[in-house]
């Protein structure tokens, strides 16, 4: 019996070591601010990471969606518009792969922001979602003030991919955000291999606390 316990313990130990060495972590992007605080009388410097600031939009069901709906969840953000004739159909086809992979996990969301709120009203977004076959609450198509969406895009989501070129918001980026609202990855949403990588990285983030 004792031998059996030792054997099981050994196997568990080896398994723990193996999974520990295989654990991958994703980089954290964005600005970092060092913060010095006093802990137990000693000065300790900590790092504050850039996070996505509070926001409030409306989804395809007419429900208000704010940053609070994403607390403790990981999500993918992108920018599109329903009448987009060039890259958006490819992007949304690829995003469907992400949706199908994670639609049963309530802690994973997709946020697609329209950059043409003049025409992409809530009913138009609902119709678009229906045509894509989106159901439930894992993929939200978001409507809001154009200035608010651009502000978030330019100052937060897309800073990581800013290569000095013009037209970032219409380049088809998928941005991966973690449970603490930090950017953890950016992927070209028109390239299937990058979308595959996004899905793999989302599985890694799912395991993070």
């Amino acid at each position: 019996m004792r031998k059996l316990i030792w054997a099981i313990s050994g196997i568990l130990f080896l398994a723990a070591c193996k999974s520990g060495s295989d654990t991958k972590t994703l980089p954290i992007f964005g600005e970092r601010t060092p913060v010095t605080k006093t802990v137990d009388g000693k000065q300790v410097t900590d790092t504050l990471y850039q996070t996505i600031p509070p926001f409030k939009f409306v989804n395809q069901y007419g429900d208000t969606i704010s940053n609070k709906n994403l607390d403790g969840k990981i999500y993918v953000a992108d920018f599109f518009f329903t009448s987009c004739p060039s890259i958006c159909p490819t992007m949304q086809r690829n995003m469907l792969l992400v949706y199908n992979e994670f639609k049963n996990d309530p802690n994973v969301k997709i946020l697609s922001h329209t950059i043409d709120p003049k025409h992409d009203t809530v009913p138009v977004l609902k119709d678009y979602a229906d045509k894509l076959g989106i159901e439930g609450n894992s993929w939200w198509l978001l409507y809001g003030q154009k200035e608010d969406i651009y502000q978030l895009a330019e100052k937060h989501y897309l800073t990581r991919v800013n290569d000095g070129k013009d037209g970032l918001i219409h380049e088809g980026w998928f941005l991966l955000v973690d449970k603490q609202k930090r950017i953890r990855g950016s992927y070209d949403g028109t390239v299937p291999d990058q979308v595959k990588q996004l899905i793999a990285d989302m599985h890694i983030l799912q395991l993070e606390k």
Partner: protein
Amino acid sequence: MLTGCANAQKEEKALQKEVLDSHDKVMADDEKAMINKMKLDTLIKKADSLKINKQTANQLSSKLTAADDAMSDWMKNLNLDNSGKNHDDIMKYWREQHVKVKQVDSLLVAATNESAAFIKTTQK
């Protein structure tokens, strides 16, 4: 006959691609316009303390909005489905769209440049 038909379709696709490529370029100009609009709107909120000409800032902001609306309307009305039309009509349609998208681009570039010049004066 078949070759002629294939060539006609090739020609239509090439012109359509040219228009859609223009659209992607104009989207980048639209983004610049929106960035300037955000800057202007921030300035307008602080107009009194910054002592800037609020009326000019408002006019420039409206001009940017009008150009952005023109882009939005053009995209909404663009029809990718030309089925049932003959070759000449399809070519005519895409030529017209090319002219229209370039007009929209001119509006965006002009409004962006004007607003950029104004913003620059406030930074002195």
